[in-house]
């Protein structure tokens, strides 16, 4: 309940489409009322018929009503299900857009992206949980409450004392037991999630580490490893189920008592004459279809803690927005990029990544950045993008700080990283993302330039072929080429390359680097690389170590003058 107090992810949407929401509740209510009324009129009908009334017209009304309710129930139920799904999906569209915008606004997101890809899946799942929250908990509970009120008032018209007794009995089912369920099972739901996580870790260990298990010959250990967690999970499930069975039994028992009370009351109330007695069957029988409205409430509410952790996670999403200085626009073409006296660390307690770092890059230069992992090669690129802000110093393009160029950034800088992202749409659409106004001809020309022309001809639908999830249709080298075509379409003067060839074999790597530097000939290129293959494409090579430049110069010059460079280069060449 606490989570809902300052909630902005559930409540606002309940009022946004309140007309439809009210319709869903009414339809749900009418469905159950039809079900009850069918048995009610049927009970009355046959009781009345059993008195053999002279005039057949006397049972004509109940006969018509029986048929009407018999048809009404399924029809209303059908409409209710469609309306509620439609409502939920409508809200989902809103929620998706909102989640997307929230994340897009978040300045910290870009940094975390590579580290925690999982969190995105979790957040997307949270929206799925919200759908179930509506369909399985909120709607059925509200409908049962409305029905409850109607029943109690209706009975109250006959006998207040009796209505109170029924009210109390039903209250156990729709108020007390759900609350008890949450209180008892809440902790177990958490525990279940935690055990599932542990199991997932164990199983991943088993599957991903399988070759090591096989080589180790430890079959017994392999099989025994997940057992304690499995046992604990089973124990947790068993106790949960035992509670549920007991509770469901209790619910049915209470219904039994309600029926008995109803029989006693009708016996007292309606036995003064025969025409009154015809109502007895009606009242008793109409209760049975209503069980379906009340019994599942506990089950729905039981999942509340699960949903609430989703709601809490969404409500916790507080985008870190950054204060940007007044934005400027470069009127002249890019002439130079400068890193001026940069000091940078990720957090006060973490080590210094860059210290008094200076670098001047002229337009059209190709700069290769090398250095052991963790020395801040990628950090340099993020600083240049303006995604990170240095503690001291600044990065400028044409002497304008990069922070003041964020609105123009996509026109200035393009980037190709280790695993470029391809969207699950056609090749054409993927490349058009670089420039939404690009013509098909321009895109085809870019595909030719990155040497994908022949591949496009082989594809079933040419450039209209869907790339499949994360570009799965294409090999690593081909994916990089597609992303490169996207960058060509984007046509920014500065291109950042973040180890684009990692994981490719040397022959593919060489060919890709040739293409990259061929098509980017007139651009400024800053290339972070993990080894020296293709380093001859660079005009300037920089070796980073401990936040400083320890080697700098053209590759030919370094090869001649620098012992360390020569040694590494020869290793890379296998000489």
């Amino acid at each position, binding site marked *: 309940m606490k989570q809902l107090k300052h909630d902005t992810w559930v409540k606002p949407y309940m009022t946004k489409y309140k007309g439809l929401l009210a319709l869903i509740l009414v339809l749900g209510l009418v469905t159950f009322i039809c079900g009850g009324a*069918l048995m009610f009129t049927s*009970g009355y009908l*046959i009781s009345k018929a*059993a008195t053999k009334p002279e005039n057949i017209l006397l049972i004509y009304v109940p006969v018509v009503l*029986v*048929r009407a309710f*018999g*048809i009404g*129930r*399924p029809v209303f*139920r*059908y409409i209710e*299900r*469609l309306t509620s799904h*439609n409502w939920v*999906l409508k809200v989902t569209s809103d929620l998706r857009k909102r989640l*997307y915008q929230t*994340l*897009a606004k978040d300045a910290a997101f*870009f940094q975390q*992206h590579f580290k925690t890809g999982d969190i*995105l*899946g979790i*957040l*997307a799942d949270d929206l799925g949980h919200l759908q179930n929250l509506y369909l399985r908990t909120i709607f059925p509970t509200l409908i049962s409450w409305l029905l409850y009120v109607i029943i109690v008032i209706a009975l109250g018209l006959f006998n207040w004392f009796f209505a109170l007794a029924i009210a109390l009995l039903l209250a156990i089912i729709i108020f007390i037991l759900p609350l008890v369920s949450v209180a008892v099972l809440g902790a177990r739901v958490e525990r279940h999630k935690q055990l599932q*996580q542990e*199991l997932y*870790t164990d199983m991943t*260990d*088993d599957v*991903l580490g*399988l*070759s090591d298990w*096989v080589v180790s010959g430890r079959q017994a250990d392999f099989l025994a490893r997940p057992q304690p967690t499995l046992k604990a999970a*089973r124990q947790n*499930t068993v106790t949960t189920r035992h509670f549920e069975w007991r509770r469901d039994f209790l619910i*049915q*028992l209470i219904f*039994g008592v309600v029926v008995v009370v109803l*029989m006693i009351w009708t016996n007292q109330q309606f036995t003064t004459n025969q025409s009154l007695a015809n109502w*007895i069957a009606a009242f*008793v029988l109409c209760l*049975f279809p209503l069980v379906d409205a009340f019994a599942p409430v506990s089950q729905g509410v039981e999942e509340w803690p699960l949903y609430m952790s989703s709601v809490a996670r969404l409500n916790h999403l507080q985008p870190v927005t950054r204060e940007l200085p007044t934005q400027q626009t470069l009127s002249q073409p890019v002439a130079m990029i400068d890193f001026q006296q940069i000091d940078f660390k990720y957090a006060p307690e973490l080590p210094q990544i860059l210290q008094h770092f200076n670098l001047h890059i002229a337009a059209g230069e190709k700069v290769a950045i090398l250095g*052991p992992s*963790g020395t801040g090669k990628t950090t340099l690129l993020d600083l240049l993008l303006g995604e990170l802000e240095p503690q001291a110093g600044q990065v400028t393009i044409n002497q304008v700080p990069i922070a003041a160029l964020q609105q123009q950034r996509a*026109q200035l800088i393009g980037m190709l990283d280790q695993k*470029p*992202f391809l969207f699950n749409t056609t090749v054409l659409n993927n490349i058009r993302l*670089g420039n*939404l106004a690009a013509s098909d001809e321009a895109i085809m020309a870019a595909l030719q330039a990155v040497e994908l022309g022949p591949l496009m001809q082989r594809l079933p639908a040419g450039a209209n072929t869907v790339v499949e*999830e*994360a570009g799965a249709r294409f090999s690593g080298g081909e994916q990089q080429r597609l992303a490169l075509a996207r960058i060509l379409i984007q046509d920014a003067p500065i291109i950042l390359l973040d180890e684009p060839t990692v*994981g490719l074999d*040397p*022959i593919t790597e060489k060919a890709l680097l040739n293409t990259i530097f061929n098509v980017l000939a007139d651009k400024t290129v800053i290339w972070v690389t993990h*080894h020296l*293959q293709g380093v001859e494409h660079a005009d300037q090579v920089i070796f980073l170590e401990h936040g400083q430049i320890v080697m700098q110069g053209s590759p030919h010059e370094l090869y001649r003058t620098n012992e360390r460079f020569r040694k*590494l280069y020869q290793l890379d*060449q*296998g000489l």
Partner: protein
Amino acid sequence: MIDKRLLRLPGTKKVLLMLAGLTILQAFMILFQGKYLAQAIVNSWRLKALAWQYQAMLFFFLALLGRHLLNWLKSHVLDRYASKASAALRQQLLTKLFHLGPSLVAKQGTGNMVTMALEGTDQVENYMTLILNKMLNMMIIPWILLIYIFTLDARSGWTLLIVVPIVILFMIILGFAARDKADKQYAGYQQLANHFVDALRGLATLKLLGISDKYADNVYQVSESYRKQTMGVLRIAVLSTFALDFFTTLSIAVVAVFLGLALLNGQMALFPALATLILAPEFFLPLRDFSSDYHATLDGKNAMQAMFTILELPQPQQRQLLTAAPTWTADSQLDFTNVNVSYPGSNEADLADVSFSVRGYRKIGVIGESGSGKSTLINTLGGFLQPQQGDIRVNGQSVPHLSQEQWQQNFVYLPQKPYLFHATIADNIAFYQPEATAAAIERAATKAGLHEWLATLPDGLATLIGEGARGVSGGQGQRIALARAFLDSQRRILLLDEPTAHLDIETEVALKETMTPLFADHLVFFATHRLHWMQQMDYVFVIQHGRLVEQGTPAELQAQNGAYVALMAQMRGETL
């Protein structure tokens, strides 16, 4: 409706028998519940005093109690059976996994296997619980009730009986219609369904391309067209529930009207009419229950089929055949003659006609273009793949494959990215030798060059790594795997499958310094693209398109000026 293999699982028949007994009992409880309820109402209707009702009310209540007690009991029985049976299946699956090894995982996908072992088993358990119970309910309860209804009023009995096939027919027709519609839209539908996660994952790219703001509207529009398509499918899918609902409710209404007319004509008394009316909904209840969980059972059924498919795969036999090589020594010999290997499910040989013999502590570099078959050779040497043809001899003893327990005790395997278990660094190092002493582990860690890094960790060797714990860089991961080899001096063969492909050049150089001393008294198979390692090799295999096209010492191959020289030149590129 039900997978025959489920019935063959141990314990299923016994449980079915027990459940059938309980269900028959339950059917009678339902019958009595209706009968005594009708009795009590009829008594009231006859204007009798409350005292006349006690007996009927008591019996009604007892029957209701019994009915739900039996439910409880059935849940217990089923739950115990299903959890045991599904746990046994999971255990079989894991055993199978161990025997088939990484080639199975490569084919099925890691995520797929993990999901199958976890969610899959849960779904199977759920399926067993649902299907057995609901099927028996459907097979027993309605028919016992129907017989009783026939004794009360034959016309009502016929009405109910006729509705059953109609309902089933409609559900089948509508089910097919829904599936057709869903099938037609499937491709586009999947794409729409995944579009949102896709957009989130691609957000960084969209930001770089400067269109992240504009894309929000796209997210909304795609979600809306997804909604419209879903509603289109739902309209038909929900129709089958509607049909069930419609015909059952309507038939109850028809029965009520028939009963009313029969009563009016004096053809029957109130009690049988009322009992019939009360039992009519109970007659349909099992059918409704069955259809309401249809999708859950479908998932479970599919999960179970997937599991059985894997369990029925053939697994390597004769794994204890090899006795001739307890440890690899300077005089040991391995011979391959015309060996053909293909991955499971692949039609062509991924390795064809491979012949070689190696003796003692040779250092063999395996080179070739990517996809040429280097990994296939390493996997065959590790016993993870079994050859279809050819002769393999270890110290002269012929074996059908190298998935020999004794052979696997002889080597250490270092892949591109060694897997680190969710355990301490010490446990990871001692993975092949869990009984190793702390001192020995420490020594191995130092030899593998881990000491500097360990010194920076507050918990040292006891630091927890792996999934969800402390991250380990690529170079350190390789060193941990290397420490396993230093720890276990019995394992004298090293199988290296591009262990440095992901490392930057300086990390690789540092690792090389640690690694080369280990080569000294080991047989080494080293598959790599990184040419400088050839200087540490005394023999080279050149693999092209699955064939071992050249082998010899580097000097011999250099002199031959063949595939080796061409490949080296191609990989090297232009030099400065």
